[in-house]
């Protein structure tokens, strides 16, 4: 971790490679490459905590779907994958997988896998999936280096690479095992931006082409590409407004936009949105504006008379605005251009989601960010960022304008939604890196010049008249030097705190797979609860292959991926009615629920229960959401029926409907016989800290099939209908 503090300017003077007989430039190159190599390795190994603590496994929920599709891709090939209709989820509806996902991640992992196979490394696809995120995080550091070099200098590039390698804001989504779209998307995002900035700087078609392909990769990987297609035109617009229009900009933007758009249309999930959806219209508007600018430039060149040009200007601008307005109006009115989606709108007007879209407002990732979350994910970068902004403005160029705009827009969005901190992280690291690099450079140059003064003074030696004039300067030197040293020490101290903070956060907060739970025992020893996998493997081994499993949607991806059984609903929440049906079944009485389950051909019901272990994110705590979502579609389910004076209870004071609904019965079946904690009565729920209200639960239409060793997952079999004869 010490690598990041080593700016080449600093080390050049102190290190000596004379024995190797390298020139200064070669020394510098060697240093730079080795620092970058160390940072590359650092970024990779900092993300391996979860593999060391637990084992090489996929984390959480969505990654299991990605893993399952990747497995399918490697086994069946690309065309099968592209046309895949999945009948194992959303029973009986099914899901068209190929047309409803971003394939970038799966294709990337499959390519890595095939490459390794080709090189005769016979690895399992799971290991490739687990390590994809750290691998791409390492690649991101390289891109950050080049980006930093582009906007400032090599020093800033190195610092940026080091900062982003361990920044918690990025690590949160890229630890080993978090095999999700964001893992490759941040790399693609930064790469696209870097190539575009390079294209604007050089005006070269090849860089613009590169950025178009970067954009294509981003579109194929993550829905966050909308950020790029809005930020880039905004940047171009700002350059136009501030009078920085140039031929380079024209080439870069047009090539990137047109090619990027055509390439993006190849992704089925995105389709023709680039020319239809309101979210993409800004880019098209700026594209047209560029043509107007170019045209005006050309006319100005043709007409040498300024007065003639002024008149011409007035006519063209008015007609251009008119035509644009009419086109937009007609497009919107005819429904060809769709209005903005709710999620996009909620970013611009933050109060919109709260009032209009409860399903967005309810997701914890979509909550607005409090300052402590920023502190947690950025730490000292928050102090360095304003300084970086100041330096950027001191040396304004097309590239620094871009990074400032990227930083600010993404930080604003990060304030609206917690999960968007991820998008802002590269910008924050880059701008902070500028601050660190520029500060260190300025201070060290101060130190060096002061060192030279006494030398010159001593060589000039004994000249009496001159030495008297030097006295005042010399007196101030030690102090200035001290001040500079103190500041440098301060900066390095802050950076070392950053390193400590990042390591701690990665290890404690972001490396938990959440599929295997860990707790501290009474003697400080680590206890592992591996109940989820136990349950899924039980399903895989002990149930008929065509069995249908009903559970709350959170576990759908995991059941299909690990249990290999058909589920009713899963984490791709595309059909609210279907989810509401499951919610209704869970919150109804057993006989009513039985009818619903029969109609859905359900064979097994799976519930997650934390009453024995004290695991708090179980189905009982999620139960009110099932009631709300179920009640949203089926008004027979009413939330007040499950509450007592607005309070959610499971003990004796709970509402009768609550005590007899299916979810309660399945979670607490036989629980009344169990002593969970010493000195407490039987049926003491440790997750909620109460003694349960219904200890004598009888099941009529279901029977217990399997309960895992810590009771976290409980599986019930739905009995076939009794013979009516």
């Amino acid at each position, binding site marked *: 971790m010490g690598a990041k503090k080593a700016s080449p300017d600093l080390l050049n003077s102190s290190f000596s490679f004379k024995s190797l007989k390298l020139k200064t430039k070669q020394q510098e190159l060697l240093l730079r490459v080795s620092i970058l190599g160390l940072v590359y390795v650092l970024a990779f190994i900092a993300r391996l905590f979860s593999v060391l603590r637990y084992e090489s496994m996929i984390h959480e929920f969505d990654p299991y779907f990605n893993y399952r599709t990747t497995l399918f891709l490697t086994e069946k090939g690309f065309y099968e994958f592209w046309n895949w209709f999945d009948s194992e989820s959303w029973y009986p509806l099914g899901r068209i997988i190929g047309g409803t996902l971003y394939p970038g991640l799966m294709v990337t992992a499959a390519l890595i896998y095939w490459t390794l196979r080709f090189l005769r490394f016979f690895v399992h696809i799971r290991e490739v999936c687990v390590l994809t995120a750290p691998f791409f995080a390492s690649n991101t550091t390289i891109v950050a280096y080049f980006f930093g070099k582009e906007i400032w200098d090599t020093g800033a590039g190195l610092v940026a690479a080091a900062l982003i390698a361990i920044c918690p804001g990025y690590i949160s989504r890229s630890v080993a095992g978090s095999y999700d779209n964001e893992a490759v998307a941040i790399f693609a995002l930064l790469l696209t931006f870097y190539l575009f900035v390079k294209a604007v700087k050089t005006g070269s078609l090849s860089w613009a082409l590169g950025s178009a392909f970067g954009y294509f990769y981003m579109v194929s990987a993550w829905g966050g590409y909308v950020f790029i297609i809005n930020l880039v035109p905004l940047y171009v617009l*700002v350059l136009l*407004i*501030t*009078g920085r229009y140039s031929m380079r900009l024209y080439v870069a933007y047009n090539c990137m936009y047109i090619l990027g758009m055509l390439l993006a249309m190849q992704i089925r999930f995105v389709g023709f949105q680039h020319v239809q959806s309101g979210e993409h219209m800004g880019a098209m508007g700026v594209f047209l504006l560029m043509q107007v600018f170019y045209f005006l430039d050309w006319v100005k060149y043709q007409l040498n008379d300024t007065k003639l040009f*002024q008149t011409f*200007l*007035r006519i063209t*601008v*008015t007609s251009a*605005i008119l035509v644009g307005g009419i086109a937009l109006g007609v497009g919107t009115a005819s429904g060809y251009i769709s209005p903005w989606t709710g999620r996009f709108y909620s970013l611009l007007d*933050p*109060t919109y*989601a709260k009032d209009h879209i409860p399903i967005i407002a309810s997701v914890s990732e979509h*909550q*607005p*960010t*409090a*300052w*402590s*979350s*920023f*502190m*947690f994910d950025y730490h000292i970068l*928050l*102090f*360095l*960022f*304003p*300084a970086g*902004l*100041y*330096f950027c*403005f*001191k040396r304004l160029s097309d590239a620094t304008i871009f990074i400032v705009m990227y*930083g*600010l827009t993404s*930080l*604003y969005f*990060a*304030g609206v939604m917690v999960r968007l901190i991820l998008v802002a992280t590269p910008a924050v690291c880059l701008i902070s890196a500028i*601050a660190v690099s*520029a*500060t260190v450079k*300025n201070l060290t140059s*101060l130190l060096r010049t002061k060192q030279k003064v006494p030398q010159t003074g001593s060589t000039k030696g004994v000249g009496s008249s001159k030495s008297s004039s030097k006295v*005042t300067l010399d007196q*101030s030197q030690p*102090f*200035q030097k001290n*001040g500079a040293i*103190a*500041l440098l020490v*301060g900066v390095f101290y*802050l950076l070392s705190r950053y390193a*400590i*903070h990042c*390591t*701690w*956060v990665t*290890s404690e907060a972001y490396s938990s797979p959440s599929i295997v739970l860990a707790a501290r025992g009474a003697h400080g020893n680590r206890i592992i609860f591996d109940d989820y996998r136990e349950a899924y493997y039980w399903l895989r081994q002990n149930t008929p292959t065509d069995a249908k499993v009903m559970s709350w949607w959170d576990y759908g991806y995991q059941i299909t991926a690990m249990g290999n059984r058909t589920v009713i609903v899963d984490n791709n929440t595309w059909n609210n009615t279907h989810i509401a049906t499951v919610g209704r079944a869970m919150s109804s009485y057993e006989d009513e629920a039985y009818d619903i389950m029969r109609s859905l051909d359900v064979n097994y019901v799976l519930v997650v229960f934390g009453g024995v272990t004290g695991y708090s994110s179980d189905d009982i705590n999620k139960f009110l959401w099932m009631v709300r979502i179920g009640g949203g579609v089926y008004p027979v389910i009413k939330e007040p029926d499950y509450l007592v004076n607005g309070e959610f209870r499971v003990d004796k004071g709970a509402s009768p409907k609550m005590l007899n609904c299916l979810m309660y019965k399945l979670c607490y079946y036989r629980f009344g016989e169990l002593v969970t904690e010493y000195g407490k009565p039987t049926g003491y729920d440790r997750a909620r800290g109460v003694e349960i209200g219904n200890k004598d639960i009888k099941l009529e239409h279901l029977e217990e099939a399997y309960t895992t060793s810590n009771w976290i997952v409980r599986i019930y079999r739905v009995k076939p209908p009794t013979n009516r004869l």
Partner: protein
Amino acid sequence: MTDHTTLPHRFFLSISLLSILAGSQPDLTKELVSLRSSSESGVIRLNDDTVSKFITSVPYSLIIFFNSADLNSNPLQEFLSEFAFVSASFIANNNRSDVANKLFFCEIDESSDSESFGLFGIQFLPQICLVDPLMENLQDKTGRMEEEDVDGTEESVLEFIESRTNLTVGPLRRPPLLSKTQISVIAALIAISAPFLIKKVLNGETIFNNNRVWLYGVVLVYFFSVSGTMHNIIKGVPMFVRDHQDSNKLVFFYEGANFQLGAEGLSFGLLYNVVGLLLAYVSNALVRVRNVSEQRVVMMLAMVVSLLAVKKVVYLNNWKTGYQIQTYWPSSWH
């Protein structure tokens, strides 16, 4: 939006209309129609005298919004204007008179007509009541909108009407944010100023060409982003709260990681900016200052301030989140 300044005006108009109509023809429906047409949104203002006349054995339904201008409550008036939208939409969507004359939107104000409130037995506001031909007892709760449904939105009113009567209101027609004349004036202004603006843009003379403006704007945006202003706006968090035990004591800082108070976030944003900008100033501008003693003083000051700010942030962050950050040393070092 219903314009409240026209209410008294409308009131007098309806009184005068009533006096004419009451004497000549007892056809209540006609009377209501004419009252309705005199109101902009179609909401009829009833008073103590007219209420009893319109609500006894009638062939139509009345939906009555109970209001109180004296209460001076903003949410109530907003709800009334939402109610007026529904009324206007109903009239606009149902052109046929046999449908439109089945339902009339009315309003009774407690400040001037408190007797009617007694007639309906209204105890609290806001309250919406449907009077239909089958209704026998006015104080009967069945005609009321349920308490939890009265949430101030037009959708709730719409749902209530459509579930209780067999009428459909149809799509809600919200009035545009700007009226047509306003839009045309704005468009004209833009059209006139466009050539001048474009000339300025081309010559690079706008305030956007001034670096300082951008710098201030940028720092401001940063300040508001990291201080969690969006969090405060979306969640409607107050700047500070009063202590539960001691009401004279104000609480500015909240203990717990996922929530914050307004002043708390802003003070942190300020601390970040102070340290960052001081760092930039010291390492970029101060080194060029000629006067040595000034340099010394400012540098000392900057270092002390930064140190205090960083210490404060670290201390408060640890207090708020309860995290104890520790280093990991190789296990052989223990």
